[in-house]
């Protein structure tokens, strides 16, 4: 092993040590504070009850045909909603650290500052996993059953994680720009709009008017459609969903990189 290789390995080890330290510290803070932990876990379950049960009659509307009925249909929205909530909160943890000045000290401590981004993204992955587990547990308890193979379920989870990561990158990039928790609406509102200008309450084919037009152009719509296809065992719009996630992740990586550069100027 030559000297350059050893140097690279040490750099990689230091990089990951920094990222894991940020993730560990943020997760510890979250777990110690129920006010930070519970809302992203509980809110999607309340939405599930309100939409799945309150709008359940939509399952009897002409043209609606989804295996497992409206509860299963709304389940995919709730999964994506849960992922987005968890990811937004993980991103806002960065905003809080930037506001208090903690992140500024972290920036001086780590060798490569992108380790901070990786740390907060890892936090988002853990929180998204917890949200998905909670939604799946409740969904199973109320009778939601995947009609496809195990691979379909894995693909469904991949779509949800991809979306969660995209929202986390959005929230991290915005937090680098606002550097304050006061900027939370600027993080949340576009996510909310992306999720509601989509086939949230009915399949794309049953939408009409302006919402149908908006949903067709909204990349998040294809995550809904493909996720529901995987749950129903009848995959649909898979290519569009993969392209949407890849496109979102690419764009948002640039968004985070430019945000980090902007935040670095204040250090």
């Amino acid at each position, binding site marked *: 092993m030559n000297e350059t290789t050893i140097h690279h390995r040490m750099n990689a080890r230091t990089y990951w040590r920094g990222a894991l330290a940020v993730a560990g510290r943020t997760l510890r803070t979250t777990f110690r504070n129920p006010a930070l932990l519970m809302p992203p876990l509980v*809110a999607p379950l309340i939405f599930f009850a309100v939409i799945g*049960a309150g709008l359940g009659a*939509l*399952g009897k*509307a002409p043209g609606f045909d989804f295996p497992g009925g409206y509860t299963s249909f709304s389940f995919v929205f709730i999964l994506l909603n849960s992922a987005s909530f968890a990811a937004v909160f993980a991103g806002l943890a960065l905003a809080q650290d930037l506001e208090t000045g903690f992140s500024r000290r972290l920036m001086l401590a780590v060798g490569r500052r992108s380790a901070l981004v990786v740390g907060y993204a890892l936090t988002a992955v853990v929180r998204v996993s917890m949200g998905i587990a909670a939604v799946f547990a409740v969904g199973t308890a109320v009778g939601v059953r995947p009609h496809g193979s195990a691979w379909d379920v894995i693909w469904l989870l991949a779509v949800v994680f991809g979306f969660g990561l995209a929202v986390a990158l959005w929230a991290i990039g915005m937090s680098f720009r606002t550097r304050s928790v006061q900027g939370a609406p600027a993080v949340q509102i576009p996510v909310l709009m992306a999720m509601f200008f989509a086939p949230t309450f*009915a399949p794309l084919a049953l*939408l009409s008017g302006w919402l149908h037009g908006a949903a067709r152009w909204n990349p998040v719509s294809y995550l809904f459609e493909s996720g529901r296809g995987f749950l129903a065992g009848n995959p649909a719009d898979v290519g569009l969903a993969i392209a949407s996630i890849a496109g979102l992740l690419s764009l948002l990586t640039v968004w985070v990189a430019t945000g980090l550069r902007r935040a670095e100027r204040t250090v």
Partner: protein
Amino acid sequence: MSGARLQITALARRSVVRTLRQPGAIFPALVFPLFFLAVVSAGARSAARLPGFPADSYFKFYLAGPFLLGTLLAGANTGTDLASDVESGFLNRLALTPVRRLGVIAGNLAGTVTVGLIQVAAFFVVGFAFGARLEAGPGGIAVLVALALLISAAFGALWAAVGIRTGSSEAVQGAFPLGFVVIGFSSLFIPRALLTVRWFKDVATWNPASYLIEGLRSLVITGWDGRALGIAFGVAGGLTVLGLAGASRALGRRFAR
């Protein structure tokens, strides 16, 4: 002018001016309900094709929703304002004056009712612009405005009780999602008769929010439904009295300290 009226007028003026000077308090109370009106009425429009659905369009059916969501948001602002008054010490200074408890609360509700009035006008304009007409006719407008303002006062009084009792604007904001939950578990999206999930139907039947929304909705989609309106006015009046009693009691405790 009698002492009580003078107190209420002075505090009401302060409340209205404070509310109108905070676009951040008015803007969300207008925009969020309209956003949900747009996406819910477009996304769930296939519900109008359900057998037995009581309206010819889902937009018309859901139009009462923004009134309830908007008044909830405006009411929460009252709670936050009163909690801020506790935090800043304004209520302590007020306690040194011969002000009546009910005067403080009624005065502060003026701001809520002002926002309620702005909301009613905005939601009417949007509703009419998109072709909705009141089945109750022009006379229904006055009744709808009166009911919406009474609901504003009810939510304002209830949030005032929370604001004064906790004395923390953060606590009011933290409790705010509970209001959304209460409204969500009602007949907001689908008429109670068409709810298919048994437990949800039971919750919606026990939920006072269902009767508020059904009263408002009846003027838009049914016409003059004395029973729905009577219950809605009764529930809104009852909640107002409950809120005022709770807020007055909480204020009494604060003044005693």
